[in-house]
């Protein structure tokens, strides 16, 4: 960690944001005009609100390997990867072949097909969890987790971490990005609604604790343990950069949950298949009762999965609780997921991700050289630069960060051929197994010129 850091001149940053936005606008003439056409039929011109980040939505034409092209023909190395889905790269030949082959055999029957078992076997091998079911998104997966925890325990109360997102169904749309004004005391955080239109009763039935804080969890369980159905946690907290769990934290949470007859669930929608071959379960050696996957599982097709111990899925196995969905286990999705897990995201692939990471760590030298108030963290395909000298340890650490700095960093990369997810105050990057050394170096070089510009 750097001992002394420069102070960033925010006026300079604002000036540069203006310049970089103007430069970006000039490159995105077709995106800008298409947005107006699309807005006639789509609110905001997009199909998801998180596709309309300022200054304007960017319409993508195609992707191949580690690159994407927007409809203006701009070419980027893709570190966005569809919010962390495309760790296998775009249009991977094996996935393309699997999709093209399956589509001719029919893609939907709402009946079981054989590929689902192969995917489940793979998931078992990677996590040790024996039983699996499928869905169509991370939202559906965490919705199923919540239902199963409540049904199994006969209790209503959920515990989540302050500042994490687990999909957009009501039960977990609580304290996702609470503001400093709403969040309440650190040792007793408020349950803050993340959206309008939540069912009343949601806030009373979901409470949160800070990440990496064992005492807070112990205190909550001591007070309300007998009401708690279970806890949902991202084992690597990924909406404020990449926040790693302190040693022993996850294991201790599991023990606390079990001591109180509550269940312990991982949301590995983002960390699954990206932070390690076996996700966070492998990386940190803690097995939860239930786990949710989505994103990278389907190799670019809408998918989700839940896994669990035999006890945790007992009611589903016995038919006492239906876990359902017309498209669950969709044969096209399963065909893509099967090849993704058996032939693409193999153990070797994670060696390559580490090599890319070692190039990206060149950013640390730049941070040191310019004495930037920043720190870097990576875990396999996931990484982030936090605009803070000490890495982010919990959600509230974000409040002191001025989001103009990461906004400028994002614009800077976009204008120089690197596509990244927006809102980098709380979004990490995702690399892909098909990135070249040059692709990785481009990020570092851009970061170097950015560091130069803001410390001038």
């Amino acid at each position, binding site marked *: 960690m750097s001992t002394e850091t420069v102070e960033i001149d925010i006026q300079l940053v604002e000036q540069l944001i203006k310049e970089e936005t103007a430069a970006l606008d000039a490159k995105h003439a077709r995106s800008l005009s298409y947005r107006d056409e699309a807005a006639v039929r789509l609110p905001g011109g997009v*199909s998801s609100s998180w596709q309309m980040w300022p200054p304007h939505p960017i319409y993508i034409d195609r992707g191949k390997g580690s690159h994407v092209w927007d409809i203006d023909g701009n070419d980027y190395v893709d570190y966005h990867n569809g919010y962390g889905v495309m760790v296998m790269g775009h249009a991977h030949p094996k996935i393309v072949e699997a999709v093209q082959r399956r589509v001719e055999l029919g*893609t939907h029957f709402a*009946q079981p097909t054989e590929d689902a078992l192969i995917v489940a076997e793979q998931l078992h091998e990677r996590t040790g969890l024996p039983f699996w079911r499928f869905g169509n998104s991370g939202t559906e997966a965490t919705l199923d987790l919540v239902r199963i925890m409540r049904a199994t325990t006969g209790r*209503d109360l959920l515990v989540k971490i302050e500042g994490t997102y687990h999909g957009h169904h009501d039960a977990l749309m609580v304290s996702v990005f609470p503001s400093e004004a709403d969040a309440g005391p650190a040792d007793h955080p408020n349950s803050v609604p993340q959206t309008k239109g939540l069912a009343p009763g949601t806030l009373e039935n979901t409470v949160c604790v800070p990440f990496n804080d064992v005492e807070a969890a112990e205190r909550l369980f001591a007070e309300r343990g007998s009401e708690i159905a279970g806890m949902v946690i991202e084992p690597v907290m990924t909406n404020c950069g990449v926040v790693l769990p302190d040693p022993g934290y996850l294991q201790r949470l599991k023990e606390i949950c079990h001591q109180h007859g509550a269940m312990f669930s991982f949301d590995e929608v983002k960390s699954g298949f990206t932070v390690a071959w076996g996700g966070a379960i492998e990386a940190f050696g803690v097995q939860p009762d239930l786990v949710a996957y989505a994103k990278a599982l389907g190799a670019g*097709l809408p998918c989700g999965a839940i896994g669990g111990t035999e006890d945790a899925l007992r009611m589903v196995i016995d038919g006492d609780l239906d876990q359902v969905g017309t498209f669950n286990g969709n044969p096209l999705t399963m065909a893509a997921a099967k090849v993704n897990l058996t032939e693409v995201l193999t153990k070797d692939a994670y060696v390559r991700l580490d090599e890319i990471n070692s190039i990206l760590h060149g950013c640390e030298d730049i941070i040191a050289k310019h004495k930037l108030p920043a720190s870097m963290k990576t875990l396999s395909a996931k990484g982030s630069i936090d605009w803070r000298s000490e890495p982010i340890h919990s959600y509230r650490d974000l409040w002191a960060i001025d989001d103009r700095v990461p906004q400028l960093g994002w614009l800077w990369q976009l204008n120089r051929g690197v596509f990244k997810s927006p809102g980098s105050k709380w979004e990490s990057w995702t690399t892909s197994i098909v990135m070249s050394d040059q692709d990785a170096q481009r990020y570092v070089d851009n970061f170097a010129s950015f560091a130069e510009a803001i410390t001038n």
Partner: protein
Amino acid sequence: MAVQDPIEFDFDRIDSLIEREEAELEPKRGASIAYRAVADRFVAGGVASSWQDSPPHAIYIDRGKGNRLWDIDQNEYIDFHLGYGAMVVGHAHPAIVEAIQKQAPLGTHFAQPTKQLDVIGENLADRFDLPLWRFCNSGTEATLEATRLMRANTGRDLIVKIEGTYHGHHDSLMVSVAPDPADMGPRDHPASVPQALGIPQVFADLVRVVPFNDLDAVRAVIAEEGDRIAGMIVEPAMMNCGVILPEDGYLQGLKDLLHANGSFLAYDEVKTGATLAYGGATEVFGVTPDVICLAKAIGGGTPCGAIGATRELYQPIIDGTYDMAGTFNGNPLTMAASAATLLEVLTPDVYDGFNRIDKAMKDGLSSVIERYKLPAYVTGVGAKGSVIYSTKPVREYRDAVGIDERLSYLAWLFQQNRGVFKSPWTKQETWTLSVWHTEDDAKAYVDNFEEFAAAVSS
């Protein structure tokens, strides 16, 4: 509609026929039955969704083509199940195969907008008469968004729904989906029954349940709880007890009552959209709601959903006051399949074809019912139809409660043993047609039904 002097079913006979047909089916399904034990090791219950496992055993599918389907025992079927009504385009339709094969090499997921969106939005606006659309991944996600839109725009919390309808598996609408008669309470004030364990009663209590086809019931709820009602969600043709059509004036009456109360009307057209007609039930019954939920048929066999609404309802989303979001929303592969489905396959002229086959089904089945004096009648519109085992019209869920489900189970077994694949579970015979279905397919269905009729009435 109903036949004169219908026969009375002999349920001892039906039980023995069920036994006979199950015994006949089992040897044909050796591979499925054996595979279930294998799949059980890693897939909870051996299936990817609980509703893929119906008695007597789960059936594992190998492939489909057009109107045909093959299970892993290589039995061939004419498919009237069509993936719970999603595959009205038929399996592996060349236009959709081409669209997917073309899109896959260009990348299938960016979590960024792509250029197919406005074309699909335009087509849906043309069909359903609502100006603005967003996309998602399932019917469950679509009705979740519809519920939130109504609550967010009114600042009210109560949702009115119909007793006995399914709108996806999120907490807000998993209420009184198929309530047990012992729990459902009086008809003039039905109980709000959580449909599954794990749904806190506090969420069920935010739903007021009313019978279908009863405007007075809605009037009464509004009189009681008016200023708390955000909106009502309804399947404009109720689909989980056969195909129950709305009576004249019902849908318009709902819209008028709700609007007068400052509440919204949402249609769940997950099952009826682009199947009953080009513009779904909205077109058939001529009443446009404030919100429409779509899924199933519009994705051509890929996981998809869509939410259409008025500009008023979407204004907070446009302004960014609240987010309607999802990583896979508008997935380029889904959108490519959807564009081919809506623009190339389910064109206005195919609905004449559905109506022609629907007529062949109805005429044939009605004639069998007539000749064998079955206490049953036929109903349906476009690609959706059903035989309802009742002499008096089923107008709402409670009318279907007393129907003995052994009848539809036996009819299902008869069809399965004779080359017709149909969806299980329902107390009614429900079918879906695809653009590939022919009069010969209708005849095969009717002939099997006649064998069933002969067996139960002899």
